[in-house]
């Protein structure tokens, strides 16, 4: 992860980004910049194109048109693994954890990438490496999963999976952390802990969050983008979005009181 971040360079820039699936316009003409260290939340109704946008940024899908740059470098044509090396880490909306590995082993897969592939031998046992072991313990403690460290992921709860998703993204020590609905389906207690965790993140880390839960979304954001029907409906501060009648109409229907 050799990219140096200069003042004035945006962590992430999207310029007229579009993606069609057959005749369906999933994401259309989206442009925005995210400054280094900012917290951006993307909200929008189901099917607004939020997750597709994430997949375009991380390189899971190729762009139909437009361009994306990360720390000033055009990555539009780069594959997902190269973008990951620039410091982008993400979580997934539906849990895509490695079910047949333990909680700690899941974390090892992230830590190995973060610490630099060359530093950790393929033939070393990670649980015998002091560094990997202590780093994984530190992160598991942070997300309150230490007691489940040696449990198979297929045997942990949904809420715990979400916590582990965040832990794995954090373990990558990303410059840009992208979380896709981290609060979906978790209990109020877990939600409170998640907000605390997100607020405590290193200010050097740029955070992009997709979130349905307005309380979580607006609590951590500096800036909010509202997406609708694949397009950018509004961009503003949390207060502006909260007070926007157009956004309220969008979420609740235009006939609400």
């Amino acid at each position, binding site marked *: 992860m050799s990219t140096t971040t200069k003042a004035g360079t945006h962590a992430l820039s999207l310029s007229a980004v579009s993606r069609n699936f057959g005749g369906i316009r999933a994401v259309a003409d989206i442009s925005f910049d995210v400054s280094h260290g900012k917290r951006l939340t993307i909200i929008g109704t189901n099917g607004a194109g939020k997750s597709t946008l994430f997949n375009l940024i*991380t*390189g*899971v899908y190729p762009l139909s048109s437009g361009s994306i740059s990360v720390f000033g470098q055009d990555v539009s044509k780069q*594959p*997902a*693994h190269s973008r*990951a*090396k620039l410091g982008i*880490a*993400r979580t*997934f909306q539906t849990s*895509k*954890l*490695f*079910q*047949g*590995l333990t909680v700690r*082993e899941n974390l*090892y*897969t*992230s830590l*190995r*990438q973060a610490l630099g592939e060359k530093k*950790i*031998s*393929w*033939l*070393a*046992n*990670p*649980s015998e490496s002091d560094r990997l072991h202590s780093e994984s313990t530190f992160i598991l403690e942070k997300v309150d999963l230490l007691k489940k460290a040696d449990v198979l992921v297929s045997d942990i709860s949904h809420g715990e999976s979400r916590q582990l998703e965040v832990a794995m993204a954090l373990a*990558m020590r990303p410059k840009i952390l992208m979380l896709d609905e981290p609060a979906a389906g978790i209990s109020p207690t877990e939600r409170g802990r998640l907000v605390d965790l997100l607020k405590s993140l290193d200010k050097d880390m740029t955070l992009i969050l997709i979130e349905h839960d307005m309380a979580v979304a607006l609590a951590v954001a500096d800036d909010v983008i509202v997406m609708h029907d694949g397009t950018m409906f509004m961009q503003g501060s949390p207060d502006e979005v909260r007070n926007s009648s157009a956004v309220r109409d969008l979420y609740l229907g235009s006939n609400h009181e």
Partner: protein
Amino acid sequence: MTRKRIMYATVLILAIIFPFITPDPDFWVSSGGTRALWLGVTALSMSFLNRNLGLMSLGQLFFSGVAGYIVAISSVTHNVKFGTSVPLAILAGTLSGVIIGWIALKTKGVYFLMLTLAVTLGLYSFANQAQEITRGHTGINSIPSPIIFGMDFAYVKPLYYLFLGIAVVLFALCKFLEKTSFGIALKGVRDNEDRMISMGYRTMPLKMIAFVFSSFLASIAGVMGVFYVTNISPDSVGLVRSIDLLVIVVVGGATYLGGAFVGAILIAVFEAIIQDFTQYYVGATGILFIVVLMLAPQGLMGIAAQVRARRAKKTGASA
């Protein structure tokens, strides 16, 4: 962990004293023990791939066949010493895994299964038709036994212990690999390859190394087969043998490494006994297969987990 170690030690001790405690040792050590170890190593090459990469390969007998034929042809037709032919055969079998893997690993699931089976059947046809090289359907017979440091492995017990040594080393090697960063990354690819890619892993090299390693195991098994059976023919690599192997892996427990040997022991012992009673022993093995899978869908090695799950369900229901 320690409980597992005690279990491994017990199994190993039993395997070591087996030739001294079994009735009719000449028959049982060979038909039960040595044969099970050979089949077990072949099945291990299949289980390793299935367990760690989620890919069921019917191509393992291709690699076994390549290695086996090289040893057979070079020693019988060209009088090449085993010291040269065996490493060469294992190398050739392993390297053929690079080519096959490069093609087959672009597919998954049933396509992978069919593609690897096609490769095995290709070798079967070639071995049948290329008579000047392989002697066609008669195959190559009377392959001499290896003599290492003056010990003649034509005798039952030395061959058994040689195979036991090989099986233990290869099993331990698989277990070791699974604990490494490489092994964890493989399981990551098995469970969710897209995620591994988005984390910055290059997954194709990982899959290739695993595939080539499994062809290395199958090649060693191919050489073991030549020394055990003392002949090789197209039938050694045909469809029926490939299905036999699949039966061993599934009966033992396809997601357990030890399942390869458990399945091999069951099938070897069962066939050794049943052949005295009926000429329809293939059908009898089929019935055994169905019975085992009805009672233990995860294979014999999966019974413990099955019982645990049932107990958890019961306590969960009563709570």
